[in-house]
């Protein structure tokens, strides 16, 4: 009788223990890879490209923030699976770093549930809640420890810097009194751009990376005729060689550039 009671007690414990044990969901990892191109050619800094109006153009800095990246579930409720809260993407690789440019910047996300998704949502810029913070709120290594502009009380969502043959003499001058540089900085909540890209994404137990490729040339497509004196559909960089959004500023160029991320990004 004593042994029977012990056996019964042990069996109950076993059964209860089994009932308490949570069912383990299969998970996987995902690599998000950021790359850049200039009309299909691998984007490199300090390399000559051709602007739509025919002049030579080169870049020395291209970086941007992304935030609130999520996968959209294929099911009816379209639930979101958060991937990245915020990240800083710097795609400024020179010609000696071609391999790194072709490899892109990778972000690995772990412990994602397997499943089917209908697309991916990306916020270009820093979403409003995070844009209230400052670099001093974070420890080193955090994406938001840089590129904050005090004058706007905002992060600089994107920086596109370089130089072009403004006087069409065949040369690009960088620095000095005759510099032909340009610098386009965009920021503040008004220019934050949330993009959803429709794409069937199936997460299996094998990590299949998602590559997001930005065509830098498309960032200059101009929706506002005021900034397209040439009428070629692109920002007139000779006339408008710099822009900064801000409380006292005209947001047209920053808004245009940030909005253009929607058409500039493709998913591979």
């Amino acid at each position, binding site marked *: 009788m004593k042994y029977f009671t012990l056996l019964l007690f042990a069996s109950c414990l076993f059964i209860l223990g089994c009932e308490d044990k949570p069912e383990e969901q299969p998970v996987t990892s995902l690599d998000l890879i950021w790359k850049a191109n200039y009309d299909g050619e691998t984007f490199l*800094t300090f390399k000559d490209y051709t602007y739509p109006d025919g002049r030579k153009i080169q870049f020395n800095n291209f970086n941007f923030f992304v935030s609130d990246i999520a996968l959209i579930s294929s099911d009816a409720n379209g639930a979101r699976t958060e991937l990245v809260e915020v990240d800083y993407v710097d795609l400024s690789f020179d010609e000696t770093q071609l391999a790194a440019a072709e490899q892109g910047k990778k972000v690995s996300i772990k412990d994602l549930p397997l499943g089917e998704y209908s697309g991916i949502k990306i916020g270009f810029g820093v979403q409003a809640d995070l844009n209230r913070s400052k*670099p001093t709120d974070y420890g080193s290594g955090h994406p938001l420890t840089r590129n904050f502009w005090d004058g706007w009380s905002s992060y600089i969502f994107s920086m596109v810097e370089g130089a072009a043959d403004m006087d069409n003499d065949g040369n690009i001058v960088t*620095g000095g*009194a005759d510099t032909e540089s340009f*610098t386009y900085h965009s920021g503040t909540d008004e220019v934050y751009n949330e993009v959803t890209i429709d794409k069937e994404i199936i997460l299996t137990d094998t990590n299949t990376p998602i590559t997001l490729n930005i065509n830098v040339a498309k960032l200059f497509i101009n929706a506002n005729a005021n900034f397209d004196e040439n009428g070629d559909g692109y920002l007139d960089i000779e006339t408008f*060689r710099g822009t900064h959004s801000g409380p006292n500023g005209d947001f047209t*160029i920053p808004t245009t550039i940030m909005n253009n991320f929607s058409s500039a990004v493709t998913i591979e």
Partner: protein
Amino acid sequence: MNRFPSLLIAGCFLLLSLLTAVACGDEEPTDPGPIDLPNDLLEFPYEPEEYTVDYPDWLGQIEIPADNPMTVQGIELGRRLFFDPILSADSTMSCSSCHNPTQSFADGLATSPGIDGILGRRSAMSLVNIAFVNNGLNWNGSSQTLEEQALEPVTNEVELHETWPNVISKLQRHETYPQFFRAAFGISDRDEMTKELAAKAIAQFERTLISYNSRYDQIRFGTGVFYEEDEINGRDLFFFELATGLDHPGCSHCHGGVQFAEPNFFNNGLTEAATFADFPDKGRGEVTNIASDNGLFRPPSLRNIALTAPYMHDGRFETLEEVIDHYKSGGHPSPNVSSNIQPFTLTDEDRDNLIAFLNTLTDTSFINNPAFQSPF
């Protein structure tokens, strides 16, 4: 009968004592100098007191390495080492020779001579708020941590020109340093004194060198202190800019944030160079071996900038007026000069206003802080 166990125990004890004595005799040091005495520091106390760096939240976050927690005793040892010429080969120079508290821990020279009178390549950087620098120390970011950086000047031929074994030997034979090392790190004997511990102590001291009581700080983060009109105009020139066009100083592109230094590296147009290979000082490129990083340097904090002339990595500018005139001109052409270095219009009055604002960054309580002065 009952006395037998006692005798046995006493006999064993005697035998053990003899064996121990013989064994100890075999380990007699061949060089009976003080540094070879085992456990010779145990007579000194090891009672480390945790030290919490006192600074306001708005200043940022300091990262303390897990293997080098700050203690009162560690900082005190670091302060002594920082100011002691014992670290140099001829005992004439210390860290403080180039990092003088009265000059916000710089030295007022374009480039600094070492013990042999040979000038270094670059100007001594101010150590103000150095604890907040997380993207590489020195002008080119060559050291990742203060602990790593502190090792370098001792052996640098144009600085202290000493060897670490010599330094450690001198410290081991010193009258008081062994007990300071014991107090800071709990070592048992002098053999445990190492260059790594010395560097850790110096790093602890350097992490305390924090400034947050300038007029700028009092105005922005305090109450009851206000800008003068010229300072306001200077502040706006420094921080704000128009929506379109580039006709503005744009200082905070490189000197943004409360530390007045972006965590990045820039070519600010100091040197004309036709190609990436033509920079006389490769700067950041020496560290990364990336061609387009040649000629890039870390922007120093502008805190206490009025005290740290001359300016730039090679100390080429004597005054802030010269610095502003350089930026106003658009600098010199080179392939990777920052696009934010563009010529701009600035009246003499605006320039004076800009300097008036920069002067608000002076913190005399920092340079006069007794805790930051020489203990000797």
